[in-house]
């Protein structure tokens, strides 16, 4: 436990000092939101109502992207001598990964707060129910944990930091094939099938329903996807890490 906390402290310090990462994690979602609301918003619908529609999508996109940067932090450790030091110490083997995942949650908490704050300034008028907010943030947390563990696994097997960053690239684009920016029924049939059945759509739909005071009909589905992914990704990443010594 102490080991995981110490590692979390380390990872948080390291990500706080990596200024590029902090700027990217906060600026990117804020700029994307401004882009969608002010540039595309008018064409897609009314700017005022589109803010309410798009903010949950941006939140899911930015947390997904933020969580995926865990792969780069892990890959960076893996190629440096420091991982050998940790592994030659009597420390539970996945404390390194737990540390990076915890830092990822912390980074995303900051980024999410920034996005919500800017969204409010842009005219986002969400539900005021505390319960809805707690549920929405809880689901986002689960989603961030799942993707962070998945990213940690990618970080372990990636040969370079650059290849580890590919996951972030995917997480930046997959949300376009979902209901994040436009309702899926506006898409051609093939894309619609993909978009309706990929795991990000129920997560976005649920966060959106909770924050706009609609009934969260896809809540259980979102929970199942995120929870399932978390269990699988955690198992995969720790299994990969425990097998490093066979190389």
């Amino acid at each position, binding site marked *: 436990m102490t080991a995981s906390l110490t590692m979390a*402290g380390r990872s948080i310090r390291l990500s706080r000092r990596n200024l590029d990462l902090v700027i990217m994690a906060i600026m990117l979602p804020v700029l994307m939101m401004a882009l969608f609301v002010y540039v595309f918003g008018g064409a897609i619908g009314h700017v005022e109502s589109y803010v309410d529609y798009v903010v949950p999508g941006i939140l899911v996109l930015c947390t997904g992207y933020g969580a995926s940067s865990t792969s780069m932090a892990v890959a960076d450790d893996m190629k440096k001598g420091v991982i*050998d030091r940790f592994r030659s110490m009597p420390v539970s083997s996945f404390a390194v990964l737990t540390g990076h995942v915890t830092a990822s949650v912390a980074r995303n908490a900051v980024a999410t707060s920034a996005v919500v704050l800017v969204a409010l300034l842009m005219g986002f008028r969400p539900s005021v129910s505390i319960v809805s907010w707690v549920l929405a943030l809880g689901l986002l947390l689960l989603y961030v944990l799942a993707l962070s563990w998945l990213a940690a696994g990618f970080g372990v097997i990636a040969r370079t930091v650059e290849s580890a960053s590919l996951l972030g690239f995917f997480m930046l684009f997959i949300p376009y094939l979902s209901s994040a920016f436009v309702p899926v029924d506006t898409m051609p049939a093939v894309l619609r099938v993909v978009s309706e059945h990929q795991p990000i759509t129920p997560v976005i739909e649920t966060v959106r329903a909770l924050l706009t005071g609609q009934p969260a009909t896809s809540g259980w589905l979102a929970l199942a996807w995120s929870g399932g992914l978390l269990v699988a990704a955690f198992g995969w990443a720790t299994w990969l890490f425990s097998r490093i010594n066979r190389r």
Partner: protein
Amino acid sequence: MIVETEGLTKRYGSNTVLSGLDLKVAEGSVLALLGPNGAGKTTTIRILSTLTRPDGGSARVCGFDVVREAAAVRGVISLTGQYAAVDEEQTGRENLVMIARLRRFARGSARARAVELLERFDLVDAADRRVRTYSGGMRRRLDLAMSLVARPRLLFLDEPTTGLDPVSRTTMWDAIGDLVRDGVTIFLTTQYLEEADRLADRIVVLHNGDVVADGTADALKNSVGGTRLDLSFGSAEDASRAQAVVGGAVDELMLSVPSDGSATHLHRVLDDLLAARVSVLRVSTHRPTLDDVFTSLTAVAA
């Protein structure tokens, strides 16, 4: 024996890195594993420090099997790898406190231990600067300090001074010497013969994954022949006349005579040549170096 390996093998694909390594290291000694790149030095250290699994054979460290009892092995060793294993974006102090916390020091004693080590390794002034700003020598000293947080019984040093300038190298050697006096067993790899000569009680030369020589620096030097006198002459004729008087082997203008290195022997050779009226231009004494050992061993084995 603090380290004991039997028939240790490791392959990467079709490349055999270790082919049945047998090695024993006594507690409190300093062993240097010497060999060219690719000889299997780093692989040996990685297996002994539980980072890599061997394909065959067995290895025990402080009586614990490195595969089955890896956790126990980790409790008694420390590793200073080939590349300084420090966090660039943390300060020296933060790096040390982090390791102490991971080694289960309480918060207060972790900080105290960090201060102790910063003082011992002359890093007090740089303690609160990020490691990114450190020189190569400072980085290595911090790296070594991080390995000593928990007072290991056995310390692995993988090429501890590679890439350091001569002054930093001497500082590292002094620091390693202090550890030996504290009773820490040291298992180091190096490409520098001078380093092995200076630090190690025992030198094991590795070539193509196998031990080709094992002994003290002196024993290894003696194995490639003793001291000799090299006498230079003004002409090949003088050289061959000298050979008729004192023996030895001629190579153009140079005569090499086996010697015990004593002044008496040198005197006798020069007196005999003076009596025979052969004039000697220069005399030098040649003692075999570990370089000679290394060259002869790896040349034969190849």
